[in-house]
């Protein structure tokens, strides 16, 4: 056993370049597998952690069943909860700094006990219009005790005085230079708002083992109140799932390319060691022993590559974690954690992946007669090309049939349909290649002799055909990313083009009806603005039956004219007509929402927004395509205003002036409310840029696929060369010189890459359709188009990369020893 292990280690270390290639392929695949697996938890943690801190580790929000925003907390029964904190929470905008957005917390002195003051103030100093701020904000704005803060809230500007500075904990955890929190005495806010003894923000720590159990118990014992989860991790997870799914999708390509490479590398190992394998067999080794040795080698590669991959994966996650930490700029990065099980999964993946990829060459290594293995005599094989061609054609046609004839079914099984199509392409092309070369070989031989010989070599060398396979897979991944990215840009552009507005205002930090009316009146009175074009919408997160929900508040009579992006037409009417009368409380829902929550037209649904529950009737289901989160309840804006007390929102309007000039002028006005004003082009560009982040991430995967692919191609070139070494020696003995040999090798690789790219270009349109269906499967419905113009630079780059990959082979094969090669028995 010891000698066996020694033998395996020695053979592994013998070919350093191959060792590096194999470890590189396994390491990268494992790292990406590990990172993709850990990314959801990581982002959820990064986003959730500040929320947990800001909620002071409270889990439940308590609202009044009466629907009143302000209510008394005196009658709350502490069943299912441990303790609760009552406060008034209001948004505001700082006027005397740089229009920062603030959240005011009206609290009692007792509720500040968990906070650490840097200057130990007395209870007396926390009275009247005093304000407690964080160390971070004090440092950012050079604020000291006694400094004044002019804050616009409840429609008026109020002057607060800094009376205490505390550590960056609790509600202050997420303070930034754009938005921060301020604690003021409860009495001051209650008096200003005339709500003495009432609160609008009551939170509690769960008292049972689980949040659900706590909520059930609390709600049972408190008929006048209702406990709801303070934040929804599922919502955060669902937001990142799109990116994670896209990563998994690209991971498939990396795994495919790496798998082909490991397969190729083991083919090379078997090819190079055929004499040793034959010797082992001649000395009495069983076929099982040989396979065992080779698989053990695969195991060790998997183990070592897996270990490196896990380390690299941890590094990738760490960078992503650092990058996704919202307070990174302030030196606040959440503790980096990942589930230990990920290491086990990634380790098993690496070992399994290496061994499975190696399996086929390993099994084949001892299929021949021992004599033929030792003497490297190739046994005539049954030609499987025709069978593969038929199977591949069936797979391709089956995928196409499903995709074009029954798109809904194709979407349900989209990843498998796409995989079938790709496998189909890989099975069909060798026969097509064979046919084409046999057709043209004799015609081009008299004119382009070496070229003809090279092309003929590609036809007869399985290793070179393997190269085409690697390049096809890598190029398909490029097509996927480029098509997806350009389609995203096109879709966003189309969506913005379909909306009729010149200027867009969002992020307005007021939920005060008075302030909103003031804003709208101001805009209406502005002669530069087309009054009748003014339209408001709002988006608000809430709950429905314990699941997250998003309401899209719209003006039903205006919205359909505002955008053509969503088709609300239904028969002769319009789905939005049912929303006109706010008193009927109707809602039109997105197809994604209907599917997720199992709702249908006619379903009654209890929507909980801003802690107020109202029953709505689903009157229509509409395909919203990629509108916002693609998952929403369209309701009349008036319902959100009157029934749920939501007064913030977005404003769209047209102008008679140059939008860019007007935006600059309006910016100052809206800064008072924290609002952001953009022209349509600006809004579109920002949206496109946000989408590009995802495509950049996918491009990185695609680049990995090409780079790994080029290494794999080089590996295959070596296999092919080793297998044909004697043929080259024969050519050399007949007068071929090194330059001609190099030309043959270069032409072979160039032909492989060009042929592979032609295959991908021919398959491109169908693949784009399949990407669209996979995107729909991932709840990202979009039409993907294949553009040869956009893909062209990548095709050229691929040709360059794969041609460059041939150079090491040319160097390595400089000294072909004709005598040595020819004397083999």
């Amino acid at each position: 056993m010891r000698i066996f292990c020694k033998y395996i280690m020695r053979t592994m270390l013998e070919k350093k370049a191959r060792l590096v290639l194999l470890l590189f392929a396994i390491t990268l695949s494992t790292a990406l597998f590990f990172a993709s697996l850990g990314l959801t938890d990581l982002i959820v943690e990064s986003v959730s952690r500040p929320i947990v801190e800001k909620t002071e580790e409270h889990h439940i929000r308590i609202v009044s069943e009466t629907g009143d925003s302000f209510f008394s907390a005196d009658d709350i029964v502490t069943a299912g909860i441990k303790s609760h904190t009552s406060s008034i929470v209001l948004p505001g905008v700082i006027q005397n700094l740089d229009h920062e957005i603030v959240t005011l917390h009206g609290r009692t002195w007792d509720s500040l006990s968990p906070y650490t003051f840097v200057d130990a103030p007395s209870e007396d100093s926390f009275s009247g219009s005093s304000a407690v701020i964080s160390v971070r904000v004090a440092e950012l704005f050079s604020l000291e005790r006694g400094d004044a803060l002019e804050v616009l809230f409840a429609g008026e500007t109020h002057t607060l005085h800094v009376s205490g500075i505390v550590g960056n904990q609790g509600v202050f955890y997420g303070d930034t230079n754009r938005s921060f929190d301020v604690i003021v005495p409860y009495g001051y806010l209650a008096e200003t708002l005339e709500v003495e003894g009432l609160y609008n923000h009551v939170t509690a720590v769960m008292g049972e083992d689980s949040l659900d159990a706590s909520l059930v118990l609390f709600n049972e014992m408190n008929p006048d109140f209702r406990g709801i989860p303070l934040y929804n991790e599922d919502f955060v997870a669902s937001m990142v799932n799109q990116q994670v799914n896209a990563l998994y999708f690209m991971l498939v390509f990396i795994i495919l390319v790496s798998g082909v490479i490991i397969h190729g590398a083991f083919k090379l190992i078997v090819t190079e060691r055929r004499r040793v394998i034959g010797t082992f067999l001649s000395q009495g080794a069983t076929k099982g022993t040989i396979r065992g040795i080779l698989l053990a080698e695969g195991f060790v590669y998997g183990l070592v590559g897996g270990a490196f991959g896990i380390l690299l994966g941890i590094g990738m996650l760490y960078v992503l974690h650092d990058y996704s930490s919202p307070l990174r700029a302030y030196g606040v990065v959440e503790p980096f954690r990942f589930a230990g099980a990920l290491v086990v999964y990634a380790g098993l993946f690496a070992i399994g992946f290496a061994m499975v990829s190696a399996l086929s060459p390993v099994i084949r290594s001892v299929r021949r007669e021992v004599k033929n293995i030792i003497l490297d005599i190739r046994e005539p094989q049954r030609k499987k090309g025709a069978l593969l061609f038929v199977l591949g054609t069936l797979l391709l046609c089956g995928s196409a049939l499903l995709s074009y004839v029954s798109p809904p079914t194709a979407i349900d099984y989209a990843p498998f349909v796409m995989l079938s199509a790709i496998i189909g392409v890989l099975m069909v092309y060798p026969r097509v290649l064979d046919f084409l070369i046999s057709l043209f070989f004799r015609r081009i031989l008299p004119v382009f002799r070496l070229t003809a010989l090279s092309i003929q070599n590609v036809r007869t060398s399985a290793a070179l055909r393997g190269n085409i396979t690697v390049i096809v897979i890598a190029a398909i991944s490029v097509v996927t990313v480029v098509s997806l990215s350009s389609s995203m840009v096109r879709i966003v552009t189309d969506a913005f083009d379909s909306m009729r507005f010149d200027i867009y205002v969002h992020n307005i930090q007021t939920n005060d009806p008075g302030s909103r009316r003031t804003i709208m009146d101001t805009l209406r009175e502005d002669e530069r603005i087309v009054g009748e074009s003014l339209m408001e919408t709002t988006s608000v997160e809430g709950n429905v039956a314990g699941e997250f929900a998003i309401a899209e508040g719209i003006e039903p009579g205006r919205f359909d004219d505002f955008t053509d992006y969503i088709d609300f037409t239904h028969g002769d009417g319009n789905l939005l007509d049912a929303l006109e009368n706010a008193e009927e409380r109707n809602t039109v829902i997105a197809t994604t929402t209907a599917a997720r929550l199992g709702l249908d037209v006619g379903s009654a649904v209890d929507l909980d927004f801003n802690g107020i529950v109202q029953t709505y009737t689903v009157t229509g289901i509409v395909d919203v395509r990629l509108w916002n989160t693609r998952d929403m309840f369209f309701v009349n804006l008036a319902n959100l205003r009157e029934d749920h007390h939501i007064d913030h929102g977005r404003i769209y309007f047209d102008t008679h002036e140059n939008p860019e000039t007007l935006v600059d002028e309006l910016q100052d006005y809206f800064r008072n409310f924290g609002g952001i004003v953009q022209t349509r082009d600006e809004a579109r560009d920002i949206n496109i840029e946000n989408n590009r982040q995802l495509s950049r991430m996918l491009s990185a995967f695609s680049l990995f696929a090409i780079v790994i692919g080029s290494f794999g191609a080089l590996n295959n070139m070596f296999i092919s060369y080793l297998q044909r070494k004697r043929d080259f020696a024969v050519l050399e003995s007949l007068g071929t010189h090194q330059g001609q040999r190099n030309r043959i090798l270069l032409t072979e690789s160039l032909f492989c890459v060009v042929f592979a790219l032609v295959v991908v270009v021919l398959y491109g349109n169908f693949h784009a359709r399949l990407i669209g269906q996979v995107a729909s499967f991932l709840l990202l419905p979009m039409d993907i188009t294949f553009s040869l113009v956009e893909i062209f630079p990548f095709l050229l780059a691929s040709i360059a990369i794969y041609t460059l990959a041939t150079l090491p082979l040319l160097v390595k094969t400089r000294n072909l020893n004709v005598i040595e090669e020819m004397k083999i028995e």
Partner: protein
Amino acid sequence: MKNDMKKASDPCIKVEGLKKTFVNGTVTVEVLKGLDFTIAPGEFVSIMGPSGSGKSTLLYLLGALDTPTAGTVQMNGRNLHSMRGREKSRLRRTELGFVFQFYNLVPNLTVEENILLPIILDGKPLKMYKERLDELLRIIDMEDHRKHTPRKLSGGQQQRVAVARALIFDPGVLLLDEPTGNLDSKNSESLMRLVADINKTFGTTIVQVTHSDTFSTWGDRILHLEDGMFSD
């Protein structure tokens, strides 16, 4: 202790109607055309013949390294080619020794590891074979090179190691495929002397394929093969 437990009068190797045909596309080549012969235990037989006469093919068939198209090869009464894969492997490990023209040593194992290879593959404790290993190293005069890898040895030395490897299990039959084909005359003679000594000392049945008229006479009998048939 030999594996051959049969009476000396019984043939060690019995070949009946042995045929081997190669098919390449539409071309069929009959390399062996129905051979019948026996080899007695302890006999030293040389097979000679021109290139392409099928002598190496015959040797590989005797060594259970190839499968006949028709006919049988019996070793000590057992038909080699009706054996299952594992049985064949066991036979190659323990009852047969095979020496190739190009030595076929495992390049990254040392001399002693190469010699012990059949024992390693058999899974037997290496300690049990320490004395046998020392004895073989002494016989092939390679005691000082036991820790060397093959690439540090001359062709003659490598071939002697290959012979030692073939003998580690003390097999009843030693098959040699052009053992001197890659050696100079001095090394060739030294090797043949070694083989002849083994035949005499251990009573090992030897079958060698050779081109050399000189070394073919070192055996008890010469079989001439031509176009897949024995000629007189």
